[in-house]
């Protein structure tokens, strides 16, 4: 290892060190606000090392990690999403826990999960892939069950644990098969096999499919989506936001690199298979979301559909596809954080505000909150002036460019179905507000949780990102373009 390697790895080293320091700090003195600020600063300082690390990229650090512009971009995404989640969490935890209940570990777990996410973005090898995934998954497990006074979080945590285990099992088996065929654990080494032989070995194909299934399980792609609604509903709202953004973002980063390096899209059979999954995902997510009366479940099903859209962009292949996927992920993170952020702010002591009823007439009582939720939902639906529209535009453009007409038409049909349930929630926001008398005694006082300045800042930031990217997306596009070029460059430089 030389100095350049350390520079390239700076963000990870930085965050790793901060994890340890945070742990020691908690051991030394328990103080909620301090630790929260500490965690936030850890992410911020890690962010600050990204430009520095960029001077040393693209660089392969050991066989395990590849640090390039693409990875740094996703790191930035993961870190900023984490910061927003921390901002949202502070107030939420204060309401759900009394003092002296030991809530500081929450932030430590969050940092560890983020560290896992960072590892995923740079991994180019099955070992780092697996380590990152497990670090992320196990931390998330504890986080999901963190509000231990409630029943749902525990249930969700167990479900997530089972899911993680089965995903790992699939992954390990797939990795074993790939190793058997190629004798290599690096993504590129695995890809080399197909380049050299005439016919693709069946076991190799099986291996790729199994790895893909493992990732799909974590991403919540149909038909591996069963856990999503339960976990989304059960987990505390900020953690749901975290799963939907950081965990998915990091996994997509990994998936994109895996698919590019292995060259999976050069095989028609795999493209067909993935295409089928994309359509299944879109249809399942959207159709099931139609019948939801629970906001968190609705967003969960919509997330299944969105992974399907993402896959359409991915399948287009080539430079536009990488751009489109990255853009879509970033945009998706922003709008998901917005939606779950509002759910977080609006939740009260007994539980999160989940039912449609809770949101009836919100626009007339708390206009800003409702406006942000409406904006996020419109963005999820892909209506212009919001970032979601540009994201969908990118996905459709990638699909059209590649001539994937069936997938594009499936995407459009599903967007229309999706629109229906987003509208249903939006129209609820503008509905007649319930008369105060109908609320049970005491509930009115709970319902008016005020947004602290941390939440205001987080939500304000998210909303302005959604609007700004929706109106003037050029800077983000350029940034992504530059970063993705690096990904392709590394891919092209294969020996």
């Amino acid at each position, binding site marked *: 290892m030389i100095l350049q390697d350390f520079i390239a790895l700076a963000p990870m080293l930085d965050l790793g060190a901060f994890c340890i320091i945070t742990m020691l700090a908690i051991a030394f003195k328990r103080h909620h606000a301090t630790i929260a600020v500490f965690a936030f600063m850890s992410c911020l300082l890690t962010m600050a090392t990204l430009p520095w690390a960029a001077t040393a990229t693209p660089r392969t650090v050991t066989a395990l990690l590849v640090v390039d512009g693409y990875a740094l971009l996703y790191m930035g995404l993961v870190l900023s999403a984490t910061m927003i989640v921390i901002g949202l969490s502070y107030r939420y935890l204060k309401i759900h826990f009394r003092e002296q209940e030991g809530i500081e570990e929450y932030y430590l777990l969050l940092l560890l999960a983020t560290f896992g996410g960072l590892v995923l973005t740079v991994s180019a090898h099955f070992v780092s892939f697996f380590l990152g995934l497990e670090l992320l998954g196990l931390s998330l497990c504890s986080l999901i069950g963190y509000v231990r006074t409630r029943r749902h979080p525990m249930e969700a945590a167990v479900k997530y644990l089972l899911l993680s285990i089965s995903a790992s099992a699939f992954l390990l088996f797939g990795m074993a098969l790939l190793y058997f065929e190629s004798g290599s654990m690096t993504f590129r080494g695995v890809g080399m096999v197909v380049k050299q032989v005439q016919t693709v070995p069946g076991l190799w194909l099986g291996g790729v499919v199994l790895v893909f299934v493992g990732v799909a399980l974590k991403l919540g792609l149909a038909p591996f989506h069963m856990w999503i609604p339960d976990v989304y509903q059960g987990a505390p709202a900020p953690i749901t936001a975290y799963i939907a953004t950081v965990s998915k973002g990091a996994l997509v980063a990994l998936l994109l690199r895996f698919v590019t390096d292995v060259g999976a899209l050069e095989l028609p059979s795999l493209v067909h298979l993935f295409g089928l999954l994309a359509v299944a995902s879109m249809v399942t997510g959207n159709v099931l979301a139609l019948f939801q009366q629970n906001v968190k479940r609705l967003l969960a099903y919509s997330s299944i559909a969105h992974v399907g859209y993402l896959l359409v962009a991915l399948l287009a292949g080539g430079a536009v596809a990488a751009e489109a996927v990255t853009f879509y992920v970033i945009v998706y993170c922003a709008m998901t954080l917005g939606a779950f952020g509002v759910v977080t702010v609006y939740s009260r002591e007994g539980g999160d505000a989940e039912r449609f009823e809770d949101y009836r007439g919100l626009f*007339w009582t708390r206009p800003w909150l409702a406006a942000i939720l409406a904006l996020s939902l*419109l963005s999820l639906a892909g*209506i*212009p*002036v919001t970032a979601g*529209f540009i994201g969908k*535009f990118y996905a*459709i*453009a990638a699909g*059209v*460019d590649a001539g994937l007409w069936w997938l*594009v038409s499936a995407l*459009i049909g599903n*967007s*229309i179905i999706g*629109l*229906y349930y987003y*509208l*249903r929630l939006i*129209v609820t926001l*503008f509905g007649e507000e319930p008369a105060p008398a109908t609320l049970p005694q005491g509930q009115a006082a709970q319902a008016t949780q005020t947004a602290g300045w941390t939440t205001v800042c987080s939500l304000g930031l998210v909303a302005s990102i959604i609007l700004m990217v929706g109106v*003037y*997306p*050029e800077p983000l*596009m*350029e940034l992504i*373009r530059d970063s993705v070029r690096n990904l392709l460059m590394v891919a092209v430089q294969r020996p």
Partner: protein
Amino acid sequence: MVLWLLILIPMLAAPLAWIGQQWSRHAARWIAVGALAIDLCLALLLWSQDRSAQPSGHGSWLFESQTSWIPRWGISLHLGLDGLSLVLILLTAFLGLVAIVASWTEIQRQVGFFHYNILLALGGVIGVFLAIDLFLFFFFWEVMLVPMYLLIAVWGHTHRRYASFKFFLFTQSGSLLLLVAIITLAFLHQHATGKLSFDYADVMGLTLNKEMAWWLMLAFFIGFVVKLPAPPFHTWLPDTYTEAPTGASIILAGLLAKTGAYGLLRFTVPMFPEVISDFAPIAMGLGAMGILYGAVLACAQTDIKRLVAYSSLSHMGFILLGVFSGTELALQGAVMQLVAHGLSTGALFMLVGALYERFQTRDMRQMGGLWGVIPRGASMALFFACASLGLPGLGNFIGEFLVLFGSYSAQPFVTILASIGMVMAAIYSLAMMQRTFFGRQHETRLAPDLSNVAFGTLLLIAVLQVWFGLYPRPVLSTTKPAMEALVQPALPLPNLTHPLSESLPLSNLFTSHVSTP
């Protein structure tokens, strides 16, 4: 820059109107009126400019403005104004004012937010009429949807939820089809020249193979016709028009439908010359079908607002007929119809809204003999019913007459069918008058007559109707260059039977028949 002002004034006034709600109930209304009045003046100023250069509308514009927006995709903020856009922007600003006046007393809840939505929607409509970058066009095309949806969903009548959903889902489906077609065109441009571009002029220059052109044309056609609407894409119309609050109904029927027609005129017809002549008979058939279908259903309605909604569907059929007939005469007629129908439908919806506000019913079976109760409203209703049925001397007559006259040479059979619609228009319009204002009074009811402001507005619309009916030259000469450009390259007539009707100078025509009434 002046073009951006046209869009930005209502858009920036929108949040102001919302905030204005805090100061006074009327502040929001006055801010909205002020913004639209400024817009109207600005548009009139543009109208009064020298138009001797005769910009054809394709490649040359009266006013133009271009700034880079998303260079990565070859998208720019490109606005252009020609006669067609100018006329429609004037209509937009004017009908916007009418809509605000119409909701002056109707909307008492969340006044600021209501006007916020109105102004935003109008800003989007003006943007649609100005944008000549396809992406920007689509952007504005969608921008107007959300505020429109909220107008219906929040302030609408009993079934507002259902209606607003239907409206949004239908129009959005059409839009997404349009989006795919637009993206495809941009990529085709890239394949042809190596440069991605969404610009109108660039995309116009493409030569497509027939199959591609056919698909793209179909996508553009459906995208626009859903808004227009024509059968079989019309089912959202009656519900939406009926359930929307008066102001929104005026904007929906008077302006949003016109954006569909504008899209056909600006994009569908000129961009796909390869297939448009093959497709024209089908489109014209749909137009005639819309005319008859709308008219028949209008006759069967008991809900007065639904009747107006179906009559609107019927009249929009003439526009579809005119747009695809391929003669300058019919195209000019279609534009005239756009303006005249916008005015007459706006007025009718305003009257219907006034009736509903006074009697809390739209059921004509519970009305009757209202002439004595609200004489001002009744006389205005009679006037606009006559305008709607195409009484010579009023604007609608010029539009429908020109369309029928112009399309006869292209599709005689379809045109004859369509002209039956004019007869039926007389039936349902007069039946509406009879059942509502004449006959036996249902029960003795007292209600205040139209307010001075409302009456004045309707009077103004009536004056405009008479003006366009007697002297349509200003409108027609403004849009003439754009329409001429549409005819020349695009539509070789399938069988040119009467060269006379084409070569006949328009001015002669008008002087000859204007003297008849």
